């Protein structure tokens, strides 16, 4: 096994666009699930809207890249409103059912050949990088050190991703340490009690759904920035990967989603490299190379179960919370 290569790949995944995208999506989900108690099972749909909004904005509407990004965020906000207005008055479980279905509906709409000219159906969308790359202030060349060697495009994507992540994290932190966040956490605990204190619970939940949805859409955009938009990415299992990252870090924390996504992707990379290498070296004789690639997703599932059972508050969650988890 080539351990140097494996370590290099793993370290590099720390600031990969995928990690940043997951961190943003998990942060959006933290607003939904961790703080407001909204069981949103359609986070993949919010990410898809961000990514498709961005790509379609450039390809179909000829917008500059930043305006297309705003279009992606706006699409996600509208989606949150459409989902939230009929469902947020109902009990939490219904939101889960509706969001998981709505995310699938969205994905199938993007996949159908009817809108092939706009969405690219099964091929997805690509070749929208012109104005984004033209706006890159970094001169051509390869920069960095050790495992973090990227060309100017790679750095531009990462820098923007990190800026988006910092902005989102500061916003969420500010919101959640304010009285607004206190109301939201109160709603998570018992919305009738908060209603009895004169707070408009529905409006808080709707705002939270929009805020989290917009942040998740930003994750979708960062995911789409370097490469292409592929409808095969925004499937239900993406939702569960984001949940794994979120719960790993701590659902009701600001840095938990970031740490969780980082660990999730580093582990994914390590396993994705080690397992096939182990097969090649004959250490897992009962398995083929392709099976080894799939094994890591099985391990993700097991990890999600273990976290929820043994450490529901996540790595960064408050220790006291564990005692009182319902």
């Amino acid at each position, binding site marked *: 096994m080539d351990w140097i290569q494996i370590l290099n790949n793993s370290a590099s995944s720390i600031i990969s666009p995928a990690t940043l995208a997951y961190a943003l999506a998990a942060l959006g989900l933290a607003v939904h699930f961790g703080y407001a108690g909204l069981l949103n099972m359609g986070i993949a749909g919010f990410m898809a809207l961000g990514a498709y909004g961005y790509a379609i904005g450039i390809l179909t509407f000829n917008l500059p890249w930043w305006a297309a990004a705003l279009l992606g965020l706006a699409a996600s906000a509208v989606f949150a409103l459409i989902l939230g207005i009929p469902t947020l008055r109902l009990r939490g479980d219904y939101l889960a059912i509706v969001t998981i279905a709505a995310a699938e509906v969205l994905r199938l709409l993007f996949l159908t050949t009817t809108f092939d000219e706009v969405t690219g159906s099964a091929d997805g969308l690509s070749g929208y990088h012109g104005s984004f790359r033209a706006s890159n202030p970094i001169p051509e060349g390869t920069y960095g050190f050790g495992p973090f060697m990227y060309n100017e495009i790679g750095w531009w994507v990462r820098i923007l991703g990190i800026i988006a992540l910092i902005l989102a994290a500061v*916003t969420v932190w*500010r*919101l959640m340490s*304010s*009285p*607004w*966040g*206190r*109301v939201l*956490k*109160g709603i*998570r*605990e*018992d919305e*009738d*009690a*908060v*209603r*009895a*204190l*004169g*707070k*408009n*619970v529905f409006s808080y939940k709707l*705002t939270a759904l929009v805020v989290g949805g917009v942040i998740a859409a930003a994750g979708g955009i960062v995911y789409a920035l370097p490469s292409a938009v592929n409808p095969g990415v925004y499937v239900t299992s993406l939702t569960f990967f984001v949940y794994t990252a979120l719960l790993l870090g701590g659902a*009701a924390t600001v840095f938990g989603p970031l740490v969780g996504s980082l660990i999730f992707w580093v582990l994914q990379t390590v396993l994705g490299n080690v397992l096939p290498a182990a097969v090649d070296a004959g250490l897992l004789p009962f398995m083929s190379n392709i099976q080894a690639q799939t094994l890591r997703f099985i391990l993700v599932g097991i990890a999600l179960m273990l976290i929820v059972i043994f450490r529901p508050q996540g790595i960064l969650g408050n220790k*006291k*919370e564990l*005692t*009182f988890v*319902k």
Partner: protein
Amino acid sequence: MSSDITPPVERPKTTGLHVGEAAPGVAKTDPIIVVDGVRRTFGGLTAVNVDHLEIPRGAITALIGPNGAGKTTLFNLLTGFDRPDAGSWTFDGKSISGMPAFKVARLGQVRTFQLTKALGLLTVLENMKLGAKHQIGERFWQSLFPFFWRRQELEIEDRAVGILKKFKLDAKSEDFAASLSGGQRKLLEMARALMSEPQLVMLDEPMAGVNPALTQSLLEHILDLKDEGMTVLFVEHDMHMVRHIADWVIVMAEGRVVAEGDPITVMRNPAVIDAYLGAHQELDLGVVTGRYEAEDADPTTDALASDTVEVSDIEEEASEESK
């Protein structure tokens, strides 16, 4: 246990609340809530059917009645947590029928719940601060910039600490509400309600599941509310408590108001005794069912009557009634 508790100083009852003879739906000199023709059915069951009811201002009113009498349903209707099939009601002269719960609360009518709703994963202090009204920091855009709300937050915190001290919860202010005992949660819920500076406090079974020592302090707090100019309406099962603190008692049974009046008179009302305690009060069921002899009957019951009545008669009567 009970000998440790010093009996509270008897506080004067508020009197002169009603106009004319005390009867269900009697007019009050200064009503804070006026209910007209409120009906709520669940399928075939009429849970609440109140023709007219007035709650006196500045007094402690108890709402009593057997299980299933519709007390909590009436509470839910008045606070906007449930919608009636028919009827209207006013609070402080303003019609609030059909108004959503949070708007009702903003008008100054705050409630607690039968099953205490302490917000477990918030600290006691956060629970308290949540109760305060008109917070700038609870608006979305302002909340992002602490300089808008920091001063108000400090004022709210001062007030919260003051109330917590009064309720002897100040030592717990940094603990999660989930770590409090059942009785302390009741106290916290009441204290949190006070943060909104209400005119009317509605307590749904404030004494349920609270130990005797804490009951005493809860009662004192309820009496304090009246002294501070608030109106209290509470649901309770414990007759002793009701007699001790209520100025006015409303009795419900099967969804209707069956009696009203000051606590002493109301409890002598035969309709109340029948509704609350049921028929055959005088019988000792041990004797009726033949588990022991008439000589061993409970001295407060009618031993002879118990001995002559057959179980089947009572059962027949009960099934007649339920038809």
